């Protein structure tokens, strides 16, 4: 087990700069998720950690040792690929045993380790099969088994669940996390799925275009997103953005957007007249017959447990989520109440958080 440290890491492919000056530290035994839209450089960063891409600029340290010129096999890491990359001509047993056999461990030891991993992953009945004879979920578990038997210092996962159906994904999320709680191996997990990040991570690193936007626990990232991008990326249904400006003096400032006025928390420190973007999460909006903000219902979708509403306030669209079933119809006028403490204010220009 080990910590992983990135120091001013940069990478270009030819003339295309993929990332620049990435620095952060993953402490020992943590489950860290690299989260970001596709193409932002997550896989590249992971492959540099594994030694599959050269580290063009900066340094990567694993367990305090500089890894720049260390061969992948000597980094003591294990990687699970997005497409699993199982060895198609080897049976499941040999797939899992491959790394041990290559390292010339004794037959008994190999057997013991493979059986341990198979037991842990419920693969015991499938050890004599070929990868093509397995379902997607089983292949995924073989890929994990291959990583487990190595007992590496660090696990690297590259979108391991993206090829599974939704139900299986939920189950594997839980199993991977439980495995981590049991083995306590430092894990770097790459995904573009914010649900995976929120449910599994000790710490999330949000990336965009090769840059780190925010690092924090899932709660911090959800409760206090550092900028509009993070606020928009985390949470489902996604956050509402209203463009407007700040009025009033410190202590009793208000947010004005068209005819709508929202009171702000007393500790808000913004310039009067400052142009801002106000983020309101749909779940933070209470919909009732007599809230202070009047809105017209455009669309009601019920998921069974909750109702998703699309509303307009002075022509601005806004989404809200209400618990239970709502007896609202398109065209109805209802009242919204919003707790000022749940508002997220971002500067309209820099898009950085100001409250």
């Amino acid at each position: 087990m080990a910590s992983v440290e990135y120091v001013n890491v940069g990478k270009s492919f030819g003339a295309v700069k993929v990332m620049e000056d990435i620095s952060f530290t993953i402490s020992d035994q943590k489950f860290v998720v690299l989260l970001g839209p596709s193409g932002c450089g997550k896989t590249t960063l992971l492959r540099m950690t594994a030694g599959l891409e050269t580290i063009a600029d900066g340094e990567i340290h694993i367990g305090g040792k500089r890894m720049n010129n260390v061969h992948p096999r000597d980094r003591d890491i294990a990687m699970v690929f997005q497409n699993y990359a199982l060895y198609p001509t080897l049976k499941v047993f040999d797939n899992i045993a491959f790394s041990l056999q290559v390292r010339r461990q004794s037959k008994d030891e190999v057997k013991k380790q493979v059986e341990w991993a198979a037991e842990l992953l419920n693969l015991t009945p499938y050890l004599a099969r070929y990868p093509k004879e397995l379902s997607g979920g089983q292949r995924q578990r073989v890929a994990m088994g291959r990583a487990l038997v190595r007992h590496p210092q660090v696990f690297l996962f590259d979108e391991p669940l993206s090829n599974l159906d939704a139900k299986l994904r939920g189950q594997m999320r839980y199993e991977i996390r439980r495995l981590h709680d049991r083995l306590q191996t430092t894990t770097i997990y790459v995904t573009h799925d914010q649900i995976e990040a929120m449910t599994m991570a000790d710490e999330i690193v949000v990336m965009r275009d090769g840059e780190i936007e925010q690092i924090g626990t899932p709660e911090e990232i959800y409760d206090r997103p550092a900028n509009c991008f993070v606020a928009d990326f985390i949470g489902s249904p996604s956050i509402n953005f209203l463009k407007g400006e700040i009025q009033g003096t410190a202590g009793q400032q208000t947010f004005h957007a068209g005819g709508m006025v929202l009171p702000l928390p007393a500790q808000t420190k913004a310039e009067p007249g400052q142009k801002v973007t106000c983020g309101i999460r749909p779940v933070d909006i209470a919909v009732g017959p007599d809230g202070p903000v009047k809105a017209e219902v455009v669309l009601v979708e019920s998921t069974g447990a909750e109702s998703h509403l699309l509303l307009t306030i002075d022509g601005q669209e806004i989404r809200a989520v209400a618990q239970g079933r709502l007896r609202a119809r398109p065209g109805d006028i209802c009242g919204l109440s919003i707790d000022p403490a749940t508002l997220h204010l971002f500067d309209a220009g820099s898009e950085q958080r100001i409250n």
Partner: protein
Amino acid sequence: MVLTPAQRILRALVAWAVVMLFAFPIYYWITVSIKLGRDIFAIPPKIFSFETSAKSYEEVFGISLGFEKGIAVLPGGGDFYMAPRLMDSIIIAVFSTAVAVLVATLAAYALSRMRFRGQHHFVFWILSTRMMPPVAVAIPMFFIYKDFGLLDTYTGIVLVHALMNMPLAVLLLKSFFDDIPKEIDEAALIDGASRFLIFRKLVLPMALGGIAATAVLCFIFSWTEFLFALTLTQTSLKTVPVVSSTFVTSTGTAWGNMAALGTAAMLPAFVFILLVQKNLVRGLTLGSVKQ
């Protein structure tokens, strides 16, 4: 897609028509080999009903199949005794294919997986060697072979066929290796395997289909190559295409004998393709990667 009966029948008809188009010349060639000389150019052509005779085969292979021994002297003079010639062709095709496939497989894997300076140019350069017409180098090759003592030897023809097949074999195999996900190599690299172990134990078994296909192409090329087989040999070996050409003489063409040799020459190639066909149709990645 659901077809109406009419569409189904039409499809079957078209399929059969295409098969006929390819099969008929072969059928006709075989009939020529067992026809009597006077029936070969009969008008109207005797396609299905004719007198059969093994004479052409007896003459070409110098064996008696239990029929009356052939009427002597044919164009070219004397009995042709072709069985050793067929053997020459087999030896040259098998060894040149083996050399070409062995070298090309290693080269193609390296080109597919390793990054080096000028890689792109290298691939193009390989291809460019096929752009020159072989006849342009035939005469220089003759002198080179003469100086090196390779003229009229198996080694010489095996080498020249292997070299001529190499560019296409490398590019073809490279495309097969490119289709095998490189993550498999990378996973094995992290697992601690050496490049050669990865190649031998993981990649090679997956590429067998592509290698078989390439081998078939190389074999057929060598089996039918004429120019170098003619110019770089004298008497100690003669491949089938070269021998075939000797049936065309100033006093006439021995169509029956040529057809008999051609028919016999189809067999080894046919056997070779049968042998590798199991690998030809095998799926390439066998489900290692989710599609």
